[in-house]
């Protein structure tokens, strides 16, 4: 039985997991770095313990401390969220070794899928097609990789063996670029995952990134919850996801979903996981990798299936059987998620830190916000820039898009810059609206500047607003100067008064 869970994460996902636990009547333990004392997950948990200083390696990556806190606080289980220790086989193993429940797959499955090379051999053996690359060839040195690259063909991708989320990933267009990019990819991978190993993979053009959510219980049942379309990426970071995919019909969904379940079964998978595929324009699909954890974008699946994935994770960890069979899963309507990052899309997406002076959230029917911040909270530079996720549901894709457009406009954040304007431009893009895009869309076919040349331009209104605000600021400054004058004359009066009384 689990009656207390330690949530080994921060931000919106820690909050999401705390909510699921509370609704199941399970107590929650938060852990936090000293930069996060006032974070939402610390505020909402029943208990909260300090891990250490802000850098992740001194706090959220301190698996030893986390396990110690779990035992001291009486938690029976640890939910890792995503990122940090979520796909760290050693941590999962240590949790199991400490007699605690890891809410996720067995450490053996993390190992099998976490090493991208081993994962690809395993699923290939199970009959799942993979993208051509150096899979199954072990951890090669730079020289070997440079030698084998022409066989795969350019363009290709350097990817971190231990990686995910675009870190340690580089695109290579010509053989000449290989040495430099290998070096920077290894350096980033080493910093992010403590493992600088990389491998090569063919870069498929005109491909879509489509992933299947699966759930597996400890009684051998595996089901999938349909697909998520994740092709809209920037620097290999997902920006916007939807479910279903406008590219997938019922027949393909059923075929790929079955394959996803097969891939999971190949590693005796337990709990929630995601099988990522690349699908080319001829609908050929290739296994890319398995994410052995909860995904950032799980809410779109929750919206269209009605399944609470985090609660299912906890129930599975408690040894319960899946309450649903594959036949119970029907996708209803359409859901889109925009990742709201603290970054400035107008200035090369530089991260934006500082205090959130004001937040006005979008509200109304069909809107879900998963957030780790609140007005008054300070965004620190120590962690990733995702501050919230805005998810909209509609009866149709069209309705979901319109709802998202307006929700983005209603969502006001003062104090830091966000990528909301960027999402607004995507919503306004005819290609996005038509469902006509691939993984290269954002970087090659979409331009923030060009999208501004639309029919809705209002330069005259912008000019008027700029002048009105400038004028107001000028008047306010003048008032302060005047008040300064008055203060001076007070001083003068006081001076005179003092002279008279001395």
């Amino acid at each position: 039985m689990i009656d207390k869970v330690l949530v080994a994460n921060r931000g919106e996902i820690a909050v999401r997991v705390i909510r699921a636990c509370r609704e199941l009547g399970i107590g929650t333990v938060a852990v936090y770095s000293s930069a996060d004392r006032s974070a939402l997950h610390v505020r909402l948990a029943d208990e909260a313990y300090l891990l250490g200083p802000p850098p992740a390696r001194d706090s959220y990556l301190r698996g030893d401390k986390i396990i110690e806190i779990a035992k001291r606080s009486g938690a029976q289980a640890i939910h890792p969220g995503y990122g940090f220790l979520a796909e760290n086989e050693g941590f999962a193993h240590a949790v199991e070794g400490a007699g605690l429940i890891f809410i996720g797959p067995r450490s053996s499955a993390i190992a099998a899928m976490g090493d991208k090379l081993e994962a690809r051999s395993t699923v290939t053996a199970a009959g799942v097609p993979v993208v051509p690359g150096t899979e199954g060839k072990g951890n090669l040195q730079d020289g070997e990789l440079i030698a084998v690259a022409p066989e795969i063909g350019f363009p290709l991708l350097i990817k971190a063996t231990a990686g995910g989320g675009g870190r340690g990933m580089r695109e290579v267009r010509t053989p000449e670029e290989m040495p430099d990019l290998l070096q920077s990819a290894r350096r980033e991978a080493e910093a992010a995952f403590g493992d600088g190993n990389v491998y090569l993979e063919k870069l498929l053009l005109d491909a879509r990134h489509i992933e299947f959510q699966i759930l597996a219980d400890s009684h051998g049942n595996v089901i999938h919850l349909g697909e998520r379309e994740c092709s809209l990426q920037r620097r290999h970071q997902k920006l916007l996801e939807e479910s279903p995919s406008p590219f997938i019909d019922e027949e393909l969904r059923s075929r790929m979903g079955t394959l996803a379940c097969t891939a999971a079964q190949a590693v005796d998978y337990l709990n929630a996981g995601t099988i990522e595929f690349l699908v080319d324009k001829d609908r050929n699909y290739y296994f890319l990798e398995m994410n052995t954890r909860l995904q950032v974008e799980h809410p779109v699946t929750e919206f269209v299936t009605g399944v609470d994935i985090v609660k299912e994770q906890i129930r599975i960890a408690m040894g319960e059987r899946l309450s649903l069979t594959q036949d119970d899963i029907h996708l209803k309507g359409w859901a889109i998620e925009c990742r709201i990052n603290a970054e400035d899309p107008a200035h090369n997406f530089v991260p934006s830190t500082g205090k959130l002076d004001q937040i006005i959230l979008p509200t109304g029917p069909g809107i879900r916000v998963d957030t780790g911040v609140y007005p008054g909270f300070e965004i620190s530079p120590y962690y990733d820039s995702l501050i919230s996720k805005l998810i909209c549901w509609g009866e149709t894709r069209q309705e979901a898009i319109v709802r998202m457009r307006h929700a983005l406009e209603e969502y006001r954040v003062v104090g830091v810059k966000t990528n909301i304007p960027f999402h607004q431009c995507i919503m306004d893009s005819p290609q996005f609206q038509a469902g006509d895009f691939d993984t290269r869309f954002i970087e090659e076919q979409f331009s923030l500047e060009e999208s501004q040349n639309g029919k809705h331009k209002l330069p005259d209104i912008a000019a008027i607003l700029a002048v009105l605000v400038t004028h107001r600021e000028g008047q306010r400054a003048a008032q302060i100067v005047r008040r300064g004058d008055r203060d001076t004359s007070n001083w003068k009066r006081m001076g005179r008064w003092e002279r008279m009384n001395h």
Partner: protein
Amino acid sequence: MRYLATVEGQTYEIEINGENEITVDGKPIDVDFIAVADHSVFSLILDGISYEAYVYPNETEVEVLMRGKRYPVHVEDERQIRLRQTSKDSVADTGEFLLKAPMPGLVVSVPVVMEQEVKSGDNLVILESMKMQNELKAPRDGRVTRLRVQAGDNVDQNQVLIVLE
């Protein structure tokens, strides 16, 4: 008070006559203008149409962000217009390039040394922020004349890291 506002190559002459009364290029217009939530977000009703925008004034321009679109507006008031008309731009090009931190972060490495000659595109500083490594490159050829940071330093946004000559 008279202003010139230039946006997307077009200049508007805007005069503020009162609380709700302005003229744009000579045409009088009724405006209803308020700040929403104290600052940065403003609501404007003009001829019954309701607009809302973020407006961020900074040193060189006023940035207006409206319906997901960004309008950098150059605004001059009467005094500035007169100043511009009576003086010439007298700032000489010093030939210095100041590499400033585009964001707060941690300096991971500085692959150059003092007096080193660098080429356009060479990495000057690797800066880690929000878990991403950012390579800050030289925008042109030059020589490192000042080196203000080293690996391990935490830097603020706009802090000068390196100077090229």
